């Protein structure tokens, strides 16, 4: 493992590469409040209380208010806070890069994401690839990988990556190779044997995503999963022509989920309905029911241009660029 000074050097070049990239493309760097009146409503994201309000879990709602106010290209690097998230790839306080572009959709912004990551790799590493140590994953229950499963794996897909999972092999993640795009429907049919777009089952979806799909994703080039079930849309708009899915993608580098993107939902009525359902579902599972962000909803009512946005975890990106295995290896200060 490289020393800490090296990690901080890397982080510094990463931040300046990001700023340079967006400035060259006429983006404005913005800062939005870290202390908020009410956090963005998501079923599985919990906020920390701060004074009379909360620490933000994401800058999304404020950045969309800037889009509605006429800022067409904006980006932000800032801290976000999520209660109860602590693991190899999670820290309750983390640094997020978010950017939004008006008059673009999720596939347009994927093109830009590809350019950004290549730009970053070149600036930070001087090359378009990095090494990823694949660590064996700790699975729950009957879905644990075993020698027996390895024998049963279909040779053309699961076997190589499953072997890598078991042996802890190193993989070179090559950004210049073709980024493989799978729809959630096809990847679930292939690795989990069912179609979440037809019959959505939230618990099964999360379990199979973590235990069956993610471990089998190719690791030597970037992988994008797109078109998530409408029930899993969060703040994404539904797909034109197939309302069963939402225009959302997630990017995986070396098997690590690194970014999430939407064609943003701009319909105020639909947005309010989703927030209300979220409050109801949070209440049902015993989570705190946050207030609706009425300022955000009025901004949508006044009109937000069709836009696309990406949220990318910068601590995880530093980890990948440094060839580290855990956030512990790249963050000088972590919560116990």
């Amino acid at each position: 493992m490289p020393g800490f000074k090296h990690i901080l050097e890397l982080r510094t070049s990463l931040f300046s590469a990001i700023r340079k990239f967006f400035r060259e493309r006429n983006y404005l760097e913005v800062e939005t409040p870290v202390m908020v009146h009410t956090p963005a409503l998501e079923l599985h994201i919990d906020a920390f209380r701060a004074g009379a309000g909360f620490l933000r879990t994401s800058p999304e709602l404020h950045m969309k208010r800037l889009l509605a106010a006429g800022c067409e290209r904006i980006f932000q690097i800032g801290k976000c806070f999520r209660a109860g998230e602590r693991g190899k790839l999670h820290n309750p306080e983390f640094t997020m890069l978010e950017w939004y572009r008006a008059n673009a959709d999720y596939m347009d912004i994927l093109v830009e994401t590809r350019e950004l990551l290549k730009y970053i790799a070149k600036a930070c590493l001087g090359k378009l690839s990095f090494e990823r140590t694949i660590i064996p994953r700790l699975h729950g229950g009957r879905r644990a990988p075993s020698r027996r499963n390895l024998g049963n794996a279909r040779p053309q897909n699961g076997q190589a990556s499953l072997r890598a999972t078991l042996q802890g092999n190193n993989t070179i993640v090559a950004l210049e190779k073709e980024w493989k795009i799978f729809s959630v429907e096809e990847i679930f049919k292939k690795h989990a044997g069912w179609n979440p777009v037809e019959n959505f089952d939230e618990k099964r979806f999360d379990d199979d995503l973590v235990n069956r799909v993610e471990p089998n994703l190719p690791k030597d080039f970037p992988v994008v999963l797109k078109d998530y079930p409408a029930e899993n849309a969060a703040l994404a708009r539904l797909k034109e022509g197939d309302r069963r899915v939402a225009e959302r993608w997630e990017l995986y580098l070396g098997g690590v989920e690194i970014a999430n993107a939407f064609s943003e939902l701009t319909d105020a009525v639909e947005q309010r309905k989703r927030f209300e359902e979220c409050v109801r579902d949070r209440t049902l599972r015993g989570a705190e029911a946050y207030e609706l962000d009425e300022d955000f909803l009025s901004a949508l009512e006044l009109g937000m241009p069709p836009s696309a946005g990406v949220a990318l975890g910068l601590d995880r990106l530093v980890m990948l660029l440094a060839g580290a295995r855990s956030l512990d290896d790249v963050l000088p200060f972590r919560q116990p």
Partner: protein
Amino acid sequence: MFSASDLRKGLRVEIDGAPYIISEFSFVKPGKGASIYNCKMKNLVTGGTLAKSYRSNDKIDEPRLEERTMRYSYQEADHYVFMDKNFEQINVGADVLGDNRFFLTEDMEVEILIHNGRPIGVDLPTFVEKEIKETEPGFRGNTATNVTKSAKIEGGYEIQVPLFINQGDVVKIDTRTGGYADRVRVAKS
């Protein structure tokens, strides 16, 4: 009751009435999905292992473990006899004690972990002092490649010690690792 967010490596839990210790733990959370807490656990009675995963809303039983402070008295065949201040006695088998049985000294205060009346573990003081019963004298000139040598304490337990340790010296042993920690006293010559 524990909730899933209490889970961590080293925590003792109860599954179907049996006590377990979490030996490996990982937190995973897919994008926009629910938190999943994956655990590998070791049965404290049988030593068997189990993998289980939990969600935020899951509750996990706390084991009904009793910890009793007792003093070591004597060994009888493969049993080790401990006594509390009311002279109540508990017999602990050599299998439960493991290497710890070599580190006991008469009257040593220990914590015995009891599940359903059955001792399943014994916590010793972190450091114990033991006399070296047997070791070769250290040779000069061999220090570059061989900075430690083996030595035996009472009962035949073998430990790696620095070359300057001689027979009759008293050393400090770390009971968590079973390794040498320090020299306490030099043998009277």
